[in-house]
Each structure stands twice: as structure tokens, then as C-alpha cells.
């Protein structure tokens, strides 16, 4: 583990009378590798390490009897601080209907997460959600959402005609929600690349016309270095309100969590921890910090 590696370095340095900046650089190198191995973005690691170095050259480390522990504490605290607050999930407020759009790359877990969120809001918060299948491209996408909705006993709107555009469908669903008293509308959108001009414009049009109160970027926890560009572009073009990290039940270290926070400042609101509709958890920064550090 990282703390064992750092302890070994400091044990070798114990015979020295005083720690030098060079000694600290050796330790920082080890921390840098740990973060890169966790898939934290290269440039984000550089910024993070320089911040940690500033603190590590202070009295608490240089004059400590347990410098390894002190540095680990600085790294952990900095990581937890950057990862943001413990989330309270999605808070649904008036005016109703409260529109939530789920967006992200292909296969990141949006449709499943829409089901999980609707299930959570219904069972834990007593809300009346309406699911909307805005993915009219992917084969059987509507069917996938319909099956999920029926499983959790939530109403849904999907494209029956085969020729509605996602924007029109969202408009229809919002009218239905107002008329029939649904308090929250959750729009499941098609997966898309952040560089796909037409697909990003489609989302911008939805955002312009219907002013969603939450635009959640769904990100696969195993994503690599491009997490930064994906998060940055979705945020710049749409103004996302938060992230959902999925597939955290795997063994990916999830360093993307730090990268997306550093680049956008937007909060991580929820965590997907499995394929079942109950597998949705709040975000706890200290748990994610431990996982990233390995």
C-alpha cells in the first residue's frame, strides 16, 4: 500500500539528522505514481503534487517524528477536500415538475441509473417520478427503460411512433407531468461523444427549451485520462449540475473522481454500485479518497 511504501522510504531516511527537500521529492514521486496508477489525469496529478509539496515542506512534516504519517495525512486531507462534500443525493424542490437530464458517454450506465434514481426518489422520498426515454437511436433502448420502469412501478413516456425527436418527446413528457401531477421528470438520453457536434447541440436545445434543474453527467468509474476532457466539454456546453460515478462495484481505483472535480468544481452526487435498481449510494469523499490512494 502507499502508506507502507512511504514508511519504507522514511525508515531509510531515519539515519539522517534532518529531512531535506530532496527527501520530500522522493516521497512525492511515490505519491505521484500511486495517483497515476489510479487513473487520475496526468495534469491534475501535477497540480495536486505541487500543492502537497508546499504543505509537506512545512514544520509538521520536516520536524515530525513520524513524517510518513504526516505526509499521508496531508495527501488524504487534500484529496478529501478536493473530492468535495458528502452528498445528500438529488434534492427535489418546487416548482414541479422538477426536470433531471441524465447525460454521458455511450455505455456509461445512464439508463440503469435513471431507473435507480427514480426508484430512490419514489421509495425513499415519496416522490412521483416520470421516466422519459429520450434515446430513440439505440436498438431496444425504449424497451430497456420500459422494463426498468415497470419493475419499480414508475410511469414512463417512450417514443411509440418511431418518428419523434428527443426534444419533442421531452416536451410531450413535461406536458404530461404538469397535467397529471408528476413532481419529477427523469430524462434518459442517448450516449454520445463530447466531440459529436450534432448530439451535443441536441442536448443544448433541450437545455435551452426546458431548463432542466439537474443535468447529471454519468461517468464510468474505470474511465481513463480523457475523463478530464469529457467532463470539461459537457460542463462548458451544458452547465452540468453534478456527476454520478457508476460501476464502483468493480476494482477500478476511480481516480477520475479527482480529475472531474478538479476540472469542473461540480459535485459528485451519487455512486452506482451494481446492476440492480437498489444499487445506488450517496457519495462519501473519504471512502473514495482511500480507494484512489490504494
Amino acid at each position, binding site marked *: 500500500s502507499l502508506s507502507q511504501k512511504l514508511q519504507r522510504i522514511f525508515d531509510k531516511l531515519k539515519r539522517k539528522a534532518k529531512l531535506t527537500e530532496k527527501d520530500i521529492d522522493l516521497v512525492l514521486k511515490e505519491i505521484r505514481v500511486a495517483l497515476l496508477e489510479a487513473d487520475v489525469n496526468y495534469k491534475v496529478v501535477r497540480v495536486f503534487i505541487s500543492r502537497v509539496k508546499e504543505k509537506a515542506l512545512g514544520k509538521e512534516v520536516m520536524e515530525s517524528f513520524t513524517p510518513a504519517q504526516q505526509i499521508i495525512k496531508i495527501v488524504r486531507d487534500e484529496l478529501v477536500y478536493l473530492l468535495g462534500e458528502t452528498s445528500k443525493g438529488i434534492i427535489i424542490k418546487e416548482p414541479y415538475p422538477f426536470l433531471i437530464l441524465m447525460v454521458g458517454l*455511450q*455505455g456509461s450506465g445512464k439508463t440503469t441509473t435513471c431507473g435507480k434514481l427514480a426508484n430512490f426518489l419514489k421509495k425513499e422520498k415519496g416522490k412521483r417520478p416520470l421516466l422519459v426515454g429520450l434515446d430513440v437511436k439505440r*436498438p431496444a433502448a425504449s424497451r430497456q427503460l420500459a422494463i426498468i420502469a415497470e419493475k419499480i412501478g414508475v410511469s414512463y413516456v417512450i417514443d411509440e411512433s418511431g418518428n419523434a425527436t428527443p426534444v419533442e418527446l421531452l416536451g410531450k413528457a413535461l406536458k404530461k407531468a404538469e397535467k397529471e401531477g408528476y413532481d419529477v421528470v427523469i430524462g434518459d438520453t442517448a450516449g454520445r461523444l463530447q466531440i459529436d457536434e450534432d448530439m451535443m447541440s441536441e442536448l443544448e436545445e433541450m437545455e435551452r427549451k426546458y431548463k432542466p434543474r439537474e443535468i447529471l453527467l454519468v461517468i464510468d468509474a474505470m474511465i481513463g485520462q*480523457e475523463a478530464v476532457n469529457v467532463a470539461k466539454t459537457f460542463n462548458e456546453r451544458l452547465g452540468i449540475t453534478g456527476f454520478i460515478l457508476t460501476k464502483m462495484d*468493480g476494482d477500478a481505483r476511480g481516480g477520475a473522481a479527482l480529475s472531474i472535480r478538479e476540472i469542473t468544481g461540480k459535485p459528485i452526487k451519487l455512486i452506482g454500485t451494481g446492476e440492480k435498481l437498489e444499487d445506488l449510494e450517496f457519495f462519501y469523499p473519504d471512502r473514495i479518497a482511500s480507494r484512489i490512494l490504494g
Partner: protein
Amino acid sequence: FRGKTELGEEEIEEIEEILFQSDLGTQMVISIMDKVRDGVKKGEIKTYEDLEKLVKEDFLRILGEKKTLELKDGLNVILVIGVNGTGKTTFIAKLSKRLKKQGKKVLIAAADTFRAAGVKQMVVWAERLNIPVVAQQEGADPSSVVFDAISSAKARGIDVLIVDTAGRLHTKKNLMEELKKIKRVIMKNAPSAHLEVLLTLDATTGQNALIQAKNFHENLGVTGLVINKLDSTSRGGHIITIKNELNIPIIFIGTGETEDDLEEFNPEKFVEELFK
């Protein structure tokens, strides 16, 4: 400043940044950069061009020759496996269209009986491409779907049976056991068939891709890799590390969401793209 430039620390860090950001993986980048710094110190690497050439040659050596999908006479069975959402079902649509165009008799087994509309998604694709598909109701035992598909394949003189499976994390032991059972069913009921086990990887995945490949390979014996979503901004550098450690050939790459977005893996082209 590309070209015949003197190699300072700035240029060396630039190459390190490119390598890291292509998802090559920490250990591989560290070992390459050690070689680079050594070569610069010895004066063997003088310019940025020398550097790029050295790294590209190393990658091409690791990736080896282009390898096409091996098909034999008689029944061929292609078992498609991989983590959730990595593009298995879409890849099968693309591959079956390609094989059908090459004159092969193709049959698809819609054996993702677990995920909502897992069967339906594969069936819709098969109908779109006018390719026969064997399916049962959702929730059926995937091994039983595979068993049916093999019987059907033998009866109809099928050349290639492609099996779609549910996505799964390699960390879930019971799901890996389910895959092993599917493989056993294939080997028991089509003992003379040529079996390929293709693992799909998402190009946007980071270093977990190596762990995925190791685990699936340990459990199933992977014969080829498919890297999907290379049309994204991710470079998919992890496949170089995977080839280096496991020596599994990369057969196909996925470059989009339509049935035509499939290419045979070309090592030279891939390495060129890595440095753009």
C-alpha cells in the same frame, strides 16, 4: 517545435505527458521514460524525431504483425465477452454483417438473458441485418440458449455462430463461473468446432483494462481482443501494455455505433494515431 529539435527536459516531459494521457499505463510509461532518459544521456537520442521513432518502434515490436480473425472449415463459434457496456452486442451486429457479406452463413445466439432488453437489443440488430438469431425469454439460463443455438447451427450448416453474453465485472466470481459454464457447453456440444473467445474493451477505460484482460484471460482463455469506441478522444494505449503482458492479439477495433463501424486492427495506423 517538432522536428530536429534539441532534446531538453521540456521536450522529454512533453513525450511523457503524451504517453500517460494515451492511457498507456504507469509502469509502461515509466519503463519507456527510463529508456529515453538513458538514451539521451548516452547521446543515442539527440532530437525529438529520434525519440518519437524509438517509442513507435518499441510499440510496433510489442504489437507484432496484423492478425485477422481465424475461421476454419465447418462450424466456428465466437464467444463475445466483456465488462458491462464495452460494446459486445453492437460488435456482434458489426461482425455478423461483415461475415455475411463475405459469404458466410451466420447465426447469432442472444444469450444475454439477464439485462433488461438484452435479448431484444440483439434480436432487433439481427432482424435489421437479416441474420438468423436464436433467443429465449429474458431470465432464461444463458447456457440453455447456447445449447439451442449449437443444435440449430449444426442442423442448418452454419459457418459462424456468434454468442452474445451479458456484461459482467471480472470481480464477480459467480458471473465468471457462469461464463465458464457457457464455454463448457460449447466445447461439450460442438467439440470439433473452432472456438474463438473475443474480449471487448472500451477505449475510454484506463488502467483497469489490463486487470480486465488478465482476469477474463485467466478464467476463459481469451483468443482475441476487440477495442471499441476508438472514435472517442481516448487513444486506447492500454492495449499496448496488454499485448506486452498477455500477448493476446488485437483483432478488431470499433469506430462508431452503426453496423459498418468495424475495422481490422492495423498496428501501424494505431501507433500513428497515438502520437497525433
